[in-house]
Each structure stands twice: as C-alpha cells, then as structure tokens.
C-alpha cells in the first residue's frame, strides 16, 4: 500500500514553514503509523520532498482548515482549563473562608452574642475582611451591652 497522509495535518507556524503530519503505510503485512515534523526546506536549502508530498496529497486548503480547527480546539481547551483553575481557586478560598468563620464564631463575645442579625451577616460574609468587620461589630455590641448592664 502506498503511503497515505491523515487529514489532520497542521501548520506549526503561521508562515507555513513547518508541517506536522501523520503518515500510514503498509509494509510486509504490517501497518505503520508515523508522526512527522517536516521543515519546508532541508538543511542545505533544497525543498523537502516529504513536505511537498503531504501538500500534494492533502492540498494546502485542507491543511489550513485542520490548522484552524486545531487552533480553535486548543483555545477552547485552554479556556476550559483556565475556568477550571479559577473555580478551583474559588472553591479553596471558600473552604478557607468557612474555617475562618468557624474560628471567628469561637470568640467568646461572638459565641455568646444574641444578635442574630449581625451573626447572620457574619455567616454570609463573602470575604475575610467582611468577616472581620462583622466580628468587630458583634464584639462592640457585646461590650456596649456589658457596659449598660
């Protein structure tokens, strides 16, 4: 069987000087598959025959198309990865925030406070500074209560 080229070949550079392509060939009842990274020119400046063979087999338009598709896929994957990382950071931050709130609720004045509104605000806080703010308000409220007794 003559060598064939899979139609997922793509340009590695915008100037189309390096081509990534996969060939399949049947040799002595054995099918081989090889990944090639092909330069347009050989080291001595002569045209690379394999490079030209791929272009002839698939056509430049087909390679342009699969390069575009590949780029879009890679960009989508990168975007998904980025989103995943952001979500992961957000989750870890939430976990830390929750532990921080539990610790804050163990402060004696906060633990014993009957101010449901402020305690609820503290519980729903979205950040550590916000937790601190409501914690201070609860402690202040408790100290004022103590003072008026």
């Amino acid at each position: 069987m003559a060598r064939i080229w899979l139609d997922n070949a793509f340009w590695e550079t915008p100037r189309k000087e390096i081509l990534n392509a996969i060939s399949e060939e049947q040799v002595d009842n054995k099918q081989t598959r090889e990944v090639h990274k092909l330069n347009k020119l050989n080291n001595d400046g002569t045209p690379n025959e394999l490079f030209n063979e791929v272009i002839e087999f698939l056509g430049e338009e087909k390679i342009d198309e699969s390069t575009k598709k590949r780029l879009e896929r890679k960009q989508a994957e990168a975007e998904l990865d980025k989103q995943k990382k952001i979500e992961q950071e957000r989750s870890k931050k939430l976990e830390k925030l929750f532990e921080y709130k539990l610790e804050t609720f163990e402060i004696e004045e906060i633990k014993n406070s009957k101010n449901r509104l402020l305690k609820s605000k503290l519980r729903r806080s979205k950040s550590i500074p916000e937790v601190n703010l409501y914690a201070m308000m609860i402690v202040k409220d408790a100290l004022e209560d103590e003072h008026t007794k």
Partner: protein
Amino acid sequence: MNTPSKGFVIVASKNSNFYIYATNLAESIKDFYPEAQITLVTEERFIDERADVADTIIHCDNHYRAKLWGMAQTPYDITMYVDADMDCEHEDIMTVWDNMKDYDMVFHELTKEREKFYAVRYFDYQGKREMYTLCGGVCLYRSSNPLVREFMEDWFELFNKQYNNMWKPDGFDDEQWRRDLKHFDQTTLWWLVNKVEKYKDLKIGFFHDDIRWNYFTQYGYENLKSIEGKPPILRHYSGSLKKDTLIV
C-alpha cells in the same frame, strides 16, 4: 387530615468539632428559613448555649455513626437529614419538602462525573461489579412510614454489626470488604436497598437538580454545576475540614 410535621435532623457526636459544625449549620438554615424545625442529636457533654438554635435536642452516645441512630429518632413525619459539616447558602432550602413527592426516601446521586470525589464507588459482589449510587450526606425521608423508620433502625443496627465484624454476607471480596467496605455506612445502605426483600418496594428517588442539595466543595474543582445553573443550597465541607484539629 393533619398536615404532616416536617423538620431537619442534624447529628453531632464523638468529636466536638461536629457540634460546632452542626450548630453553625442549624443557624445557617434558620438564616434563610426561620420557621424551620430543627432537631439536634448530640452528646450531652457538648451542649452549651449554641444548642438554643435547635427546637428539639436528643441526646446520643459517642457512637461513630450516631448519624444513623439519629435518623431513626426523628420526631417529624417528613425529615430532612443533613450531615453536620454543611452550610446552608440559599433560600431554596424552604422548598426541600417539594422533593418528597411520592417517594419514601430521596438522596443525592453518586454519578460518573462525581465519582472521583468519592472514596469508594465500585466493588465486587458475587463476581459482578456493583456500585454505590446513593450518597447519604443528605436524605429526605418519609419518617411517618413505619417501614422507612424500620429501615433507618436496621441501617444503624446492621452497620454496627458490619463495623464490629458480626455481619458480612457471602459474595463480597474479603480483602475489599476489610479495606474499603466494612467501615462504610454506604455499604449497609446498598445492601438494604438492593438485597433485603422487605425494602424492595420502598420508592427511592433523587432531589431535583440534586447537586444543589449536597454540593461538595470539591465539585467546584471540576466546575460541576447545577443543571439549571442555580447556586448550591447546601454546601458540604466534608473533604476540607480538619475535623480532628481543635478549631481554636
């Protein structure tokens, strides 16, 4: 006909951190649902003023799975059991009872996309690969049904036997049983639901958009989301909290 009573059951035993988590969870439920009836099942030694948030307190002993005992003690006709290490984040908590429909028990589902966050999902039984599909982190159940109540009692009793090497049905792989299954109340749950004749007719379902009712914080690592794009109602911190370390 009387309106069935409805309430939440939260259990905290063995470790005082769970008492802190449990009272925080109860407060967070009441932040969004002030009329919620809450039963706190906990050890007498833990109780302080924070327990005032509970409408009913039931004392338990320091059992590793007092949770199962507590579920059977519910004073309500319809009960929502919630693991203590959770936090309520959304007003839709008030809609929890709508999930009961005509089911006897409603759970959060262990799905393929969530499986990486579970310690064990697959196991061998009688040479076949089986899997857990029900997660016991939350459970809405019709406790007015005597069979459901019996189920909860059996869950506790059978788990005790399983944990103490007094019960192991044939068909499980010995090594896997000892390593993964014996300590797990999910194993008992799987057995009761799938292998015990008297419970075959119990109607078991899943919460609508069930991820919202038991959102493990680790789900966020994989960006797992509600099918309706809505925020979590109950967030589960089970994998992240240092349960054996004193909070302060």
